[in-house]
């Protein structure tokens, strides 16, 4: 056991919590209309409560417990049975097992929270709650098992995902797209943007995401070591490159660089460097940042407008597309001289790694699409996913939560 490692991973855990609330909550909350801001804050907040408990009761065991043929964990660790102060060397030999568990809990929390961006402003709270629990149990937990757990079948194939490009971002992003398609457009959304009600909130939330992401990525080293330091630096440089690139593209394409563009680009950079951060060098991280800004800009500003689906806050365009770019880029830029536990990518003479990364993306997309479709249909049949039309017009804050964010008259 190592006190430095333990202290760092505990700190990183708190940083990842900060990403969901207030980071993501305000990033998304600022983007919706004023009548729906509390619904976003509530959804993020309740996901933290509910998925933390799900994780303790059975989620952690499903994701990381003793493997059933590489498909899913069994329930030996349900209720955190046997997950205590002694390290579990298979995951992290130098920190208590409970520290690894709670660090992973924050990942399980933020992943379904990312999906909120797709169904924002039109989902019933009760349906959201049931959907989230089912999605976390039947999509996130198995995927985390496949990619990260000892005995997981994608891990056995040699797939690289340092901090969750596949498990967190591709899975939530592609599920978000399916939800946006199944749920339909918001009333009044006609290929025209619905104006964000508070961009300063969005910028503050985005900045907190950047800050918390150091815990997400550098914490995923599970030690206070050189790999963590490399992940910290690559995370920062990819994000800086992506934020700048997005603003420059806008400047050239639309005539003005926007702060919403800069912060969106930065988040895309964070997403893309997530799977790669522990395996690539800082210069290549910068290239990943530039690349993801260009591709996500096309996805959000050009392709979404052409296809006309209403991914309200671009959960798919940023997380799904960005996560895919990052996972593929890992197969290009990864190098063993950075991380001996990783692999060489295409640039370092290993074509096979690119193939494995591509396979991971395809498997995740197929799995997430099918499962999200099924879960949506189940919840829609039981509760109904979408609010009534008049409730949507009045806003979710008043109709789902009986409260208002802002008063006009005292």
């Amino acid at each position: 056991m190592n006190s430095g490692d333990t202290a760092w991973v505990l700190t990183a855990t708190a940083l990842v919590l900060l990403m969901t609330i207030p980071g993501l909550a305000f990033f998304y909350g600022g983007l919706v209309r004023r009548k729906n801001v509390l619904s976003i804050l509530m959804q993020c907040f309740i996901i933290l409560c509910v998925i933390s408990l799900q994780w303790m009761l059975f989620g952690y065991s499903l994701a990381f417990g003793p493997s059933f043929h590489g498909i899913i964990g069994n329930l030996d660790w349900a209720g955190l049975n046997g997950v205590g102060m002694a390290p579990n060397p298979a995951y992290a030999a130098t920190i208590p097992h409970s520290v690894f568990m709670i660090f992973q809990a924050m990942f399980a929390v933020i992943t379904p929270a990312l999906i909120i961006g797709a169904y924002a402003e039109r989902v019933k709270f009760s349906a959201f709650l049931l959907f989230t629990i089912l999605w976390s149990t039947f999509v996130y937990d198995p995927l985390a098992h496949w990619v990260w757990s000892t005995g997981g079948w994608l891990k056995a194939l040699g797939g690289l995902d340092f901090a969750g490009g596949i498990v967190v971002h591709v899975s939530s992003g592609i599920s978000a797209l399916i939800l946006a398609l199944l749920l339909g457009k918001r009333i009044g959304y006609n290929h025209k943007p619905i104006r964000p009600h508070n961009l300063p909130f969005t910028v503050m939330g985005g900045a907190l995401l950047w800050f918390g992401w150091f815990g997400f990525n550098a914490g995923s080293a599970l030690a206070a070591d050189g790999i963590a330091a490399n992940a910290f630096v690559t995370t920062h440089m990819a994000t800086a490159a992506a934020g700048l690139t997005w603003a420059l593209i806008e400047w050239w394409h639309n005539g003005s660089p926007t702060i919403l563009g800069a912060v969106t680009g930065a988040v895309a950079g964070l997403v893309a460097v997530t799977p790669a951060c522990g395996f690539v060098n800082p210069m290549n991280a910068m290239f990943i940042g530039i690349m993801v800004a260009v591709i996500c800009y096309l996805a959000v500003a050009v392709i979404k407008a052409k296809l006309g689906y209403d991914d309200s806050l671009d959960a798919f365009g940023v997380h799904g597309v960005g996560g895919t770019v990052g996972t593929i880029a890992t197969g290009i830029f990864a190098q063993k001289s950075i991380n001996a536990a990783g692999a060489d990518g295409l640039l370092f003479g290993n074509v096979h790694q690119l193939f494995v990364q591509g396979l991971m993306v395809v498997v995740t997309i197929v799995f997430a699409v099918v499962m999200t479709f099924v879960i949506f249909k189940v919840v829609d049949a039981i509760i109904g996913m979408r609010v009534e039309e008049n409730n949507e017009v009045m806003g979710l804050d008043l109709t789902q939560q009986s409260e208002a964010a802002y008063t006009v008259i005292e």
Partner: protein
Amino acid sequence: MKLIIAIIQPHKLEAVKKELEAVEVNLMTVTNVLGQGRQKGHTEIYRGAKEAGGLLNKVRLDIAVNEDFVEPTIAAINKGARTGGVGDGKIFIVDLHECIRISSGERGGKAIG
């Protein structure tokens, strides 16, 4: 009695107030409003999606005056708010039937100033 409604550029409010005070028009109600004129609003861009025709911020003044004060008030607003470009705003004048000061119950011309 007349009710003078002026729509002006927000950044001209202080200048207009100063000019009104100079002609001893001290009572007014000020509100933030949105509007568009010949310039047809402005364009906003969110994640590459353009929204044209966004309404512009304006300030509205509601000023009730006796007949003697109508022309000085108009002159003061013109002086304070004019830049000579589009978007300077408009002044509307309507007849006012009655005016009542709530604290004393006074009516008409006495209650207005």
